[in-house]
């Protein structure tokens, strides 16, 4: 599976010669990523007639570029409107939107774009060289280890609930309870669904996301004239200011590196995804920050960490498909359909029969991120204007168009009603100080945690000691314990230092 430097260089120029595929894909991807509900895999399904009609190299390049760009796009509405375009951008709202409210939307966008693009370049570059080692990650992460990874994500509930711990925990527990809705993982019998068919597969994530974030936000928006304070955001940043904001983002290079690698590893794990990676990265960034109290108030690192992680994941989810032949996520599954249709083998055989295609997938990702650099300036400069559009235009438009997004993934009319129901829950939660992100974390991670837990317990014959039976699992447990204890101990130390008890 190894490739020489010369081979990689040749591949780079080959991928770059596909600019006429990558540029439209990047544009479509950013746009679709920014509309909740469309995301990469729904868009790719809609465009299947196109991708099945063209040569497999072109189709793959197009899909890969669109996939990466959609994760960059997902952060835009998260920052500007408090509405994550994809589940992976939910954590971005926590600090991105407060920045917009303070009139710093273009700065937040610059952070998000730089983090996304750098993470994409870092992880696709790393993957090109380390593909065969990365593919091994899947062999060590099984249901047992997944349980601990999910707990890392859930720990974020406690972190973002810091303002009122009890309310935050209630929000998280409510999310988990709602996440337990739907057919059970073993016998497939529907639970707590009110007999509604559309809930048999559990709470549909996109309508829940749209309701909790978009619809509730639209209702609250009507209380104000615009999102940003009118005076502060009237003036659009100049090109010079835009450049400074973009360059300023690079001072968080270490956070980008660490979060993107975290995203890459989580992406390689079967069944994990962008939302988990973003939650975990945010939680890690907050825990080891010198100023954890600033997270949630419009802190720059709170935008960097989730955006770097969710773009790191895009590279990771392709690794199992390429290296083992089993797709790691829904977008990879759709790519597999295209490969199958063209009669191209995947998994290790792909590297034997068509190594150019196999490495080409990762290289086109790398090249797509380079092309995204071009979009950086105009997007950063102009998009922030959205926050000064009058809310009487924005609120109805958000509701009307995100409801289409709620419908698209499953084509169920009931998903519109589900989105509105979650919208009302989200509205009440926001008005009364229950964190909607905490509810969403529960809804997303709850079912995944339950599945991994039940599978492990089945394998062990009901012996809970299985959770401590693997080395990697135990290391993860130890890290989890450190993470959970680190935050309170670090702040305790700081408090003591301030009081002069210790030096």
């Amino acid at each position, binding site marked *: 599976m190894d490739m020489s430097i010369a081979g990689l260089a040749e591949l780079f120029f080959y991928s770059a010669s596909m600019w006429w595929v990558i540029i439209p894909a990047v544009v479509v991807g950013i746009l679709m990523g920014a509309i909740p509900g469309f995301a990469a895999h729904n868009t790719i399904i809609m465009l299947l007639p196109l991708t099945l009609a063209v040569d497999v190299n072109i189709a793959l390049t197009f899909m890969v570029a669109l996939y990466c760009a959609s994760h960059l796009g997902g952060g835009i509405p998260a920052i500007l409107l408090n509405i994550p375009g994809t589940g992976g951008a939910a954590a971005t709202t926590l600090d991105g939107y407060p920045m917009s409210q303070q009139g710093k939307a273009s700065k937040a966008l610059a952070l998000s774009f730089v983090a996304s693009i750098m993470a994409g370049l870092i992880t696709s570059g790393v993957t090109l060289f380390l593909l065969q080692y990365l593919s091994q990650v899947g062999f060590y992460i099984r249901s047992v280890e997944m349980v601990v990874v999910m707990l890392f994500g859930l720990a974020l509930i406690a972190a973002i609930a810091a303002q009122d711990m009890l309310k935050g925990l209630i929000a998280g527990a409510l999310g988990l309870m709602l996440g337990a809705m739907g057919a059970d993982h073993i016998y497939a*019998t529907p639970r707590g669904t009110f007999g509604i068919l559309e809930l048999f597969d559990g709470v549909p994530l996109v309508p829940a996301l749209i309701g909790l974030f978009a619809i509730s936000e639209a209702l609250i928006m009507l209380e104000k004239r615009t999102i940003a304070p009118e005076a502060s955001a009237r003036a659009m940043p100049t090109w010079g200011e835009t450049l400074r904001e973009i360059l300023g983002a690079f001072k968080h290079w270490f956070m980008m590196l660490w979060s993107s690698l975290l995203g890459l590893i989580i992406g390689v794990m079967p069944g994990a995804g962008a939302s988990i990676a973003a939650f975990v990265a945010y939680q890690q960034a907050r825990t080891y920050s010198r100023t954890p109290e600033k997270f949630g108030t419009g802190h720059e690192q709170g935008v960097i960490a989730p955006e770097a992680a969710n773009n790191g994941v895009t590279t990771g989810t392709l690794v199992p498909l390429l290296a083992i032949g089993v797709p790691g996520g829904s977008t990879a599954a759709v790519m597999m359909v295209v490969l199958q249709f063209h009669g191209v083998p995947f998994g290790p055989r792909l590297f034997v029969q068509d190594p150019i295609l196999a490495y080409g997938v990762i290289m086109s990702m790398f090249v797509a991120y380079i092309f995204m650099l071009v979009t950086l300036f105009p997007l950063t400069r102009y998009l922030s204007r959205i926050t000064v559009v009058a809310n009487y235009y924005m609120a109805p438009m958000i509701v009307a168009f995100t409801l289409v997004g709620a419908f698209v993934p499953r084509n169920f009319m009931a998903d519109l009603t589900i989105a509105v129901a979650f919208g009302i829950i989200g509205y009440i939660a926001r008005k009364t100080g229950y964190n909607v992100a905490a509810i969403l974390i529960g809804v997303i991670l*709850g079912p995944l945690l339950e599945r991994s837990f039940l599978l492990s317990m089945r394998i062990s014959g009901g012996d809970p000691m299985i959770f401590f039976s693997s080395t990697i699992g135990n290391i993860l447990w130890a890290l989890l314990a450190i993470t959970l204890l680190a935050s309170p101990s670090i702040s305790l130390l700081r408090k003591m230092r301030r009081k002069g008890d210790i030096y």
Partner: protein
Amino acid sequence: MSDEAPSDRKQVGSDLIIPVLGIAYAIYYVYSVWEFPAEAQRSGFFLAGLLFLLCALFFLRTLLLALRGKAELEFLALLGPPEGRWRRLGFVALIGAYLLTVQTLGFTVSTFSFLFLGSMLGGLKSARRAATFAAIAALAGWLFFIVLLGTRFPLGPFEALMAQVMLLWT
């Protein structure tokens, strides 16, 4: 995130809605899995228990506040500032009306009506501007979501008309 209460007494009425909803759902959930195999029940029972415990602590905290005379049962804060309150309630009703009619009216007509009435309810004064905005947005949405992307969102009279026009044209 709570709205500031006008008096120094904390308004707690609306704070109770989420825990009460949560407990109601948890009770229904437990009831719905009561006769299921243990593996299908386990997580539900655990989560319901957790939610009960947390909500019990919350109710206790609220009760203690009330006993010290620091809380009042008040729900109006939930509806946001008094100014424009009825308009916002009207907007919620409009969303309900949209859900009820979208399947008959189809994407374009229902989106146009929703955007027109929604922007007026949101505070836009000029009906002409509202109509222009709604028409442009609905047509753009139709072109993008229905024609270009081919989503299967319900079609209505406008889409039928355009289909006839297309047939005549081709």
